[in-house]
């Protein structure tokens, strides 16, 4: 039987859920449709289906700032990719030590590591800024990437510690009997089994860095170094309140990579949120 008879309950439930989902996504869909409408139609048509389609907003927005928008996408991509790589390496190194090795004061260091997860970024922001400006590193990528190289995203250390603890220790011991040192065990045994945790770390680091605004606003104030969020912000300052088309178009482009990662990495995202409470 292809069609099971449905009783009233689930159907009503589905209708309500679909309705609610539509209301939630409506602003997003409206932004996409508005980005394809001629300027003067955006306010007149709150509906989603554009009566007239144009790509003018995209070409206009792409060249509206000092550099073509691709320039800012590239700047964002460089910082984001470096952050992902740095987080993967630095956090997994620390996580392996916490999960598998014994050393003096381990409990204390672990507690400190957990404590730093909850630490508000603003508490360190002023001295960090002073330090990077004394080192003459404002308007470079270092203030944004250096913290990741130094494993300060403790959330991911915690995530990986939790994951490594679920792996059977016998594997480590077998490799040790075969004469492998800690480094070889880390690279050859533990890391390959950690792929799900590494994927979660990579995807979240990507999304957070791509979205990050405050630190990029702080450290990048030369238009030649602007990333996507900072560039979008200048858009807002530069354009009058009536010209939204190009701004919407570039906002859609800015959200594109996140949406892509969302589609590709849903499994890891949802598992990551469910197990650790990441955002």
């Amino acid at each position: 039987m292809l069609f099971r008879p449905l009783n009233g309950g689930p159907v009503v439930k589905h209708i309500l859920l679909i309705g609610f989902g539509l209301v939630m996504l409506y602003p997003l869909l409206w932004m996409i449709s508005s980005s394809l409408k001629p300027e003067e139609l955006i306010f007149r048509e709150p509906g989603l289906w554009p009566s007239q389609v144009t790509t003018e907003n995209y070409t206009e927005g792409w060249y509206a700032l000092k550099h073509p928008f691709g320039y800012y996408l590239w700047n964002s991509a460089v910082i984001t990719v470096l952050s992902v790589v740095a987080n993967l390496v630095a956090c997994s190194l620390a996580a392996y030590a916490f999960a598998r090795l014994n050393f003096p004061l381990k409990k204390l260091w672990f507690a400190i590591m957990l404590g730093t997860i909850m630490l508000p970024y603003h508490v360190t922001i002023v001295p960090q800024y002073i330090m990077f400006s004394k080192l003459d590193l404002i308007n470079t990528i270092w203030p944004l990437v250096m913290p990741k190289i130094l494993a300060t995203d403790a959330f991911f250390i915690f995530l990986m510690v939790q994951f490594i603890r679920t792996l059977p220790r016998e594997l480590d011991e077998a490799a040790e009997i075969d004469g492998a040192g800690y480094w070889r065990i880390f690279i050859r045994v533990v890391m390959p089994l950690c792929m799900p945790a590494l994927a979660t770390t990579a995807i979240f680091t990507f999304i957070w860095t791509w979205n990050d605004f405050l630190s990029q606003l702080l450290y990048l104030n030369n238009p030649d170094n602007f990333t996507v969020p900072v560039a979008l912000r200048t858009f807002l300052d530069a354009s009058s309140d009536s010209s939204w088309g190009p701004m919407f178009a570039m906002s859609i482009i800015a959200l594109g990579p996140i949406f892509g990662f969302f589609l590709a990495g849903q499994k890891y995202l949802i598992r990551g949120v469910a197990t650790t409470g990441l955002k």
Partner: protein
Amino acid sequence: MTEVSVASGPAGGGHRSTQRSRREARAAYLFLAPWFVGLLVITIGPIFASLYLSFTDYSLLEEAKWVGLDNYTKMFTEDPRFLNSLQVTTIYVIVSVPLQLAFALALALVLDRGLRGLPIYRSIFYLPSLLGGSVAIAILWRKVFGADGLVNAVLSVFGIQGTGWVGHPDYALGTLILLHVWTFGAPMIIFLAGLRQIPSSYYEAAAVDGAGALRQFRSITLPLLTPIIFFNLVLELIKSFQSFTQAFIVSGGRGGPADSTLFYTLYLYLQGFKNYDMGYAAAMAWVLLLIIAGLTGVNFLASKYWVFYGDTK
């Protein structure tokens, strides 16, 4: 100690096992080296540096000048904008966090229990959580709730003349609260994971005893879910107290209109990096740390009275 040397296997003898544990400790500290440097230079160092700076007058260009508690007394006695930012942030947190968690829990309950299409719904409701922090969405929000934005366009279909919501001191904060509620998907997923931990045999037993859906919710679901509610509450309180991007973009970086969206962190940013009053900003940062630590502490203390941990009762 003896256990350790036995566990360390065939080597056996005390001497070789201490050698081994020394080797292990050395390896561990090498693996942790980047983290240690980061802890010192990026985290702990700056925390204490900002404590020191909070007692000074410092503008990046001149030497820091010791002023004692001046920054702190100024904050609470002579700076109405500071007190206002504290108030705005508190209202934002107190209204938006419970609302967001209520939506998250409600949707998780609806989606639980083998609903068809669950993965699709889950993804749809989760998507805003990923996008919500971005500048692009804040721009969208500014336009949706602007004078000639989507909301007013929809209202005008019904013949209602709306106002410029983000430009009105009475409503601007409300639009930011809505934006926060919109991102209920992440706590919803945590709730869903929690709901899945509750054995279905509990419900079956309750049904046999004649408990209805509401009774089951009150006596089984809610108590067993309190640890998850608590977890979400702690996390969201800490996070929402630090909200920055949305208020910055929606208000054009100024916290207006009439300081109605001047979030704490936004005011801190303006003081530290627009006025270059870095001593004052550092003092604000420490007050923020104390507020968040205090809030979390109170949360943990209060949790004894309402959070139910099955086996450790």
